[in-house]
């Protein structure tokens, strides 16, 4: 008897494992779309009252929402949008209600949702255009001058577009999840700096946390997801990339190479180290491999701390790393000031990496990796050179990480050993477990969710909770230090994940079936009796 719970809500359209062609990925994308749209709409609806560029980002005062009278047409529209949003968010529960009673879901639900989505879209466009022609005071009534309104409108708009796509083009989303995902994510990704031009910290987060961690997770996904080699020391390659950038573009050694050279150098150096780490682990599998990589992950930051060869600057690391300044005929772009250019560069690199990794995944190399993951002995007996195939996975995974490291060094301008601790490796691994091991779309969604929680929400949770405390007269809410709960959040998220969706948010097709039964693992070396 299906009950009305979040678990059911997330999983009721789960694949039938006996089906010839599971539709799981498509339905997951559909759910990501509808849940994402609800989140964005919610954020957008409240944003006029809680994003203030003067504070370090976000301040939340729900009382403002209640007390501000609907004086302008804008506020009126925003309330309408809010009601539409509520109906949208609650509609899946209505569907559940029908399903639980084994009755057909009336087609009207979908029609209503499409109607709301289209209406909302029109409303937001109107509000957006109005912000261009009339004063925000007239539009929203008496709100203080520091309030950002057009980011809110943007967010609402994106939310409604997502919702309209999810419900209006449901068939398409489920049939072509990747295309649908790219069609939405790409324009939104490119336009993000314009949406948040009044909140540069958000763009910095998008470049320095979301972008970098997406790259890292994509790289680790090659090693863990495709080739099935558990790597717990992946942050080491990140460190190598970052230190390569730091050493060759800073006053430290008086070398100043451009970032565009350094990202390739970082990738090359890291992939070399990837092969070096790979070599001794070739005979290991599973737990043993994980332990060795764990060791490697500890050694690299330690070497940096000990200032080996006076190269790394010891515990203080390397500071004042160059930030690119590009001279164009019509303008000069200083990346240090206009951070959105970092964002666009990282986005471009992420897109290129995704395309290349997808190519690899569907090539002879990708097949060899999967074969290796599935059955190393059979792979060897089928003519696959297990040694070089594993090393290739390590090297390619590490090179992506080195690329991310070089960017990271340039964005934050200072690298020190603390930035590459074990917790970084854990974060990256959590991202791919959360998102869906072996599935590139899942990894991207996972990195979005996790970096948002860890590097954005937790940063400002203190502030939000303090303003909330003031508003509802519980000042002690401002004294909670949420940052110390990072690992608790990982833990809870992972436990919930394993219980509700063991394959991740968007599981790969293979994982979905694998979960219904265990796989066998045996290393070639163990069969040969030499491990």
């Amino acid at each position, binding site marked *: 008897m299906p009950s009305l719970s979040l678990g059911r809500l997330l999983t009721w359209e789960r694949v039938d494992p006996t089906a*010839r062609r599971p539709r799981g990925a498509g339905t997951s994308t559909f759910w990501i779309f509808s849940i994402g749209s609800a989140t964005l709409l919610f954020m957008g609806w409240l944003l006029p009252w809680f994003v203030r560029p003067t504070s370090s980002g976000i301040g939340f005062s729900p009382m403002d929402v209640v007390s501000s009278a609907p004086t302008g047409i804008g506020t009126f529209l925003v309330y309408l949008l809010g009601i539409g949003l509520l109906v949208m968010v609650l509609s899946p529960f209505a569907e559940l209600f029908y399903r639980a009673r084994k009755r057909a879901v009336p087609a009207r639900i979908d029609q209503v949702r499409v109607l709301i989505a289209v209406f909302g879209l029109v409303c937001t466009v109107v509000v957006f255009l109005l912000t261009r022609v009339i004063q925000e005071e007239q539009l929203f009534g008496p709100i203080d001058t520091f309030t950002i309104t057009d980011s809110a409108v943007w967010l609402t708009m994106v939310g409604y577009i997502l919702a309209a796509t999810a419900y209006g083009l449901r068939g398409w989303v489920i049939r072509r999840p990747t295309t649908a995902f790219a069609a939405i994510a790409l324009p939104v990704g490119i336009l993000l700096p314009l949406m948040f031009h009044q909140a540069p910290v958000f763009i910095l987060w998008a470049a320095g946390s979301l972008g970098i961690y997406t790259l890292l997770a994509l790289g680790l996904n090659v090693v863990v997801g495709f080739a099935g080699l558990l790597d717990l020391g992946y942050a080491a390659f990140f460190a190598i990339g970052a230190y390569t950038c730091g050493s060759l573009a800073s006053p430290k050694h008086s070398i100043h190479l451009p970032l565009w050279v350094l990202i390739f150098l970082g990738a090359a150096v890291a992939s070399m180290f990837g092969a070096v780490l790979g070599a001794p682990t070739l005979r290991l599998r599973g737990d043993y491999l994980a332990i060795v990589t764990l060791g490697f992950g500890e050694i690299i930051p330690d070497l940096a701390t000990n200032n080996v060869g006076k190269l790394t600057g010891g515990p203080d690391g390397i500071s004042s790393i160059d930030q690119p300044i590009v001279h164009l005929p019509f303008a000069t772009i200083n990346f240090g000031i206009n951070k959105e250019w970092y964002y666009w560069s990282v986005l471009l690199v992420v897109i290129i990496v995704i395309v290349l990794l997808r190519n690899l995944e569907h*090539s002879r190399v*990708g097949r060899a990796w999967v074969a290796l993951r*599935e059955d190393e002995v059979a792979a060897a007996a*089928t003519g696959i050179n*297990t040694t070089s195939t594993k090393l*290739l996975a390590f090297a390619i995974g590490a090179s992506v990480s080195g690329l991310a490291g070089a960017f990271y060094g340039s964005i934050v301008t200072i690298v020190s050993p603390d930035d590459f601790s074990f917790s970084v490796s854990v974060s990256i691994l959590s991202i791919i477990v959360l998102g869906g091991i072996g599935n590139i779309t899942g990894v991207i969604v996972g990195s979005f969710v996790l970096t948002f929680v860890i590097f954005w929400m937790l940063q400002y949770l203190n502030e939000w909770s303090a303003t909330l405390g003031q508003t509802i007269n519980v000042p002690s809410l401002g004294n909670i230090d949420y940052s110390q709960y990072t690992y608790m959040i990982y833990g809870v998220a992972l436990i919930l994940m394993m219980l509700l969706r063991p394959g991740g948010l968007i599981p790969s097709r*293979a994982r979905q*079936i694998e979960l219904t039964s265990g796989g066998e693992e045996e290393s070639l070396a163990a069969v*040969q009796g030499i491990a």
Partner: protein
Amino acid sequence: MALIEVESLVKRFGGLMAVNDVSFVIDAREIVSMIGPNGAGKTTAFNCVTGLYPITSGAVRFDGHSITGQPPHRITRLGIARTFQNIRLFSFMTALDNVMVGAHWWMSARVWDSVVKSPRARADEKRVEARARDLLEQLGLTRYAGSYARELPYGLQRRLEIARALATQPRVLLLDEPAAGLNPQEKKELMALISRLRDEGLTIFLIEHDMRVVMEISDRIVVLDHGVKITEGKPAEVRSNPQVIEAYLGQGAAERMVDA
């Protein structure tokens, strides 16, 4: 002409002599079976020939060249393909992909081609996919091309494993109990397949427990017991050999059968 020569092969696991001084020769385009009671060392001998086990002493030669101590993938590339007693398919790859993995080693696209999906990689992929579909069709698996290997019925999994082995372009096919778990109809099809493969120029070396299959298709039979080769010869000779009967049925039975 001798294609595979196994000379004084010894494989020891600690104190256990799994294979003890076994020698035999397999000629090109021959079907040779290896039989023996459970634990006789048949699969161990297979693993030694295909490089999965390093051998303790002795020598294995393929087409006149020593392959002793070579890694398994190189031996496969030389032209010795195999299947496994307990089917070892890549469970979460489609049947088509399983066969295409067999073609991995002779595909011409380099890593860089694969990364940028160059015209060469595309052409290569297309060619190999056509070849793989061809193999699937020959083995009657066409309609399962898109299914995961583990979704296939048992008998078809055995066939898929043979298809994967054939995709490596072997000269010798080693089959480890190919008839195990098959029904009589499937066994008949298997025997037809083996004969057809031989007619197409392949050499077949198989381990099998089903005596009807062994006696019907083998040109020669090698008999192992307790790691030692007790005899070798044509099916009719082996069938009436008292040592073979003794190994299978015990000493008393052997004496009675010889008396009778």
